[in-house]
């Protein structure tokens, strides 16, 4: 049997329970949604879910289901369905596998996603979501609410803030019509408070990884980010992250590392390579290389901006890192490398995620220049295994790790 040099987390049990409950609720929404007057929304990962929660809307995330499709090796089959329906192979593999799952739910894990009552797309993460959700809106013939967050070339501007704020108020009016419930600012404030708490817990948990050895490695971060994506603002999410934080804190106190004999500390940039989650990161762990932080799951650890609940929503969701300049993103990586005392970084040039990947070479050069640590670029895809060439990837990883010998 292959040697295991990876320390499992006890919190995985709680994670499975928390997420299992969420999936059960979501997939059986058709039985309880109507009687409780709680519509189901499909939302993008950067949608202002606290506003939806304040209207008692239940949210499901196509991106998150797409990651599960991929981890269960069904992405290629689902993408082929979308390819046959005319969607280009150059489109995002989350979009294609989601559409494939809509057309053929029998081929999708968990029986595909439950049928939505409305769609909410925010383009702070990418522009693809607009056309993707338009296609879904036509298919299901349901309302699509769009939040347009202007790209920030520098800091947030008053004009951008006003523009987003106005849309949020308009969205609240639409949601009143859809749900039959009035907008309640107190409800929203409560959701924002709970959301802030869960974000702080996630942030503090991550910060423990500044310890040497690091208590968590990239696959831990990617697996344990699930609740902050889908249960942001919920009490279950808060309960879960309290448990995780306590376990990680204890690991640090005991000096336990996620990777045995941690020798090289790395920072990861871009979405996980879901279909290779363990085999890919094992190549690093086998050589004592641990990913102590990353920009992807760290995207959910940004604290809320000040202001009224609506103002805070407007700023927080416009300032997400994928909506920021290459300078901002380079500085983000530089700070992670310094704060986590990393020896290098690895960038996943993700064929699917254009806004994340297109500027990476510029960022890579700047970060290498300013920190003096090496940076490796890997070409792959977050979900579509056909874009992953195993031997060339192994070659690059080996050569990169040899530079630390």
């Amino acid at each position, binding site marked *: 049997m292959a040697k295991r040099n990876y320390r499992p987390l006890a919190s995985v049990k709680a994670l499975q329970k928390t997420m299992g409950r969420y999936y059960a609720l979501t997939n059986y929404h058709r039985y309880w949604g109507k009687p409780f007057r709680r519509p189901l929304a499909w939302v993008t990962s950067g949608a202002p879910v606290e506003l939806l929660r304040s209207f008692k809307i239940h949210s499901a995330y196509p991106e998150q289901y797409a990651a599960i499709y991929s981890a269960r090796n069904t992405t290629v089959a689902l993408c082929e369905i979308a390819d046959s329906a005319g969607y280009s192979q150059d489109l995002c593999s989350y979009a294609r596998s989601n559409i494939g799952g809509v057309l053929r739910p029998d081929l999708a894990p968990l029986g595909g996603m439950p049928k939505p009552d409305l769609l909410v797309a925010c383009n702070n993460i990418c522009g693809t979501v607009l056309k993707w959700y338009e296609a879904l809106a036509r298919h299901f013939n349901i309302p699509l609410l769009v939040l347009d967050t202007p790209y920030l070339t520098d800091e947030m501007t008053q004009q951008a803030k006003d523009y987003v704020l106005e849309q949020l108020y308009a969205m609240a009016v639409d949601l009143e019509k859809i749900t039959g419930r009035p907008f309640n600012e107190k409800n929203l404030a409560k959701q924002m408070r709970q959301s802030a708490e869960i974000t702080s817990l996630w942030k503090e948990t991550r910060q423990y990884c500044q310890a040497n050895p690091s208590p968590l490695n990239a696959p831990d971060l990617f697996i344990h980010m699930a609740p902050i994506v889908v249960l942001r603002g919920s009490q279950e999410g808060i309960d879960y992250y309290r448990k995780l934080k306590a376990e990680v804190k204890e690991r640090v106190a005991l000096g336990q590392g996620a990777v045995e004999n941690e020798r090289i500390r790395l920072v990861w940039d871009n979405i996980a390579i879901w279909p290779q989650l363990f085999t890919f990161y094992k190549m690093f762990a086998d050589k004592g290389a641990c990913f102590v932080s990353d920009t992807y799951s760290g995207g959910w650890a940004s604290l809320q901006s000040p202001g009224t609940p609506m103002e805070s929503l407007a700023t927080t969701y416009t300032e997400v890192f994928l909506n920021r300049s290459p300078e901002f993103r380079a500085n983000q990586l530089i700070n992670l490398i310094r704060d986590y005392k990393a020896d290098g970084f690895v960038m996943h040039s993700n064929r699917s995620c254009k806004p994340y990947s297109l500027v990476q*070479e510029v960022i890579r050069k700047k970060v*290498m220049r300013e920190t003096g640590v*090496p*940076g490796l*670029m890997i*070409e792959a895809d977050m979900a579509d295994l056909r*874009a992953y*060439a195993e*031997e*060339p990837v192994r*070659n*690059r990883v*080996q*050569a990169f790790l*040899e*530079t630390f010998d």
Partner: protein
Amino acid sequence: MQKYFVGVDIGSLTVKVVLINDDLEILGTAMTRAGFSGRDVAARLKDQLISDSGLTAQVIGATVATGYGRVTFPSDREVSEITCQAKGISHLFPTARTVIDIGGQDSKVIKLLSNGRVADFAMNDKCAAGTGRFLEVMAAALEVEWQEISELASTSENPAKISSFCTVFAESEIISHVSTGALKSDILAGVCDSVASRVASMTRRTGLEPDIVFTGGVAHNQGVVNALSKQLGYPLLVSREPVITAALGAALLASELRKA
């Protein structure tokens, strides 16, 4: 007692073996097509090189394997081609700062620190454009032996434009050039330019710092050497035996294993 070291480079197209002594002198080299099982071919080639040099397996201090077949080849250590290539080139050319290596299915650019260590590198991905295989396919389409490419290309006065990077589409482009009556020499010059421009942009991406060494099987092709040198605006250093530099690096690393 004198010890000897072996470097084995099992590439996608060819297998290369280099034998050196304690003084890091090259005693012998051997090369052949990798064929179906590069590993078996490499094992035979290694044994043959050792016996042809009048030695026995007992005096071999260590063997390092590199190249695509490195993982399954029995050796003291397997090391990536990038590290081996850097080692071999900085041994032959201590002033080298940039290495351009075009092999059978890989093209790579390695940036070296002044101590010969790897600072950064870039490689082609999932595509045979700008590789030896690309040249082979185009030569076959024109019914030219690959050794003839450089001589024919050097006579071209009006190189054809090969715009497609894709090996399959470039081949059909060549066929259409042939059907319109273009000269073989012009088409071949266009093919060399195409490989050079693909690799030149990769080189600029890692940052261009002289001295620049061009290595790998394609460095034998003067047509690509000239085209690449012209596009980069720098002279290129080429070793006498560019095919074996990664295997040499592997042998040098094998000699260090013993000292360690």
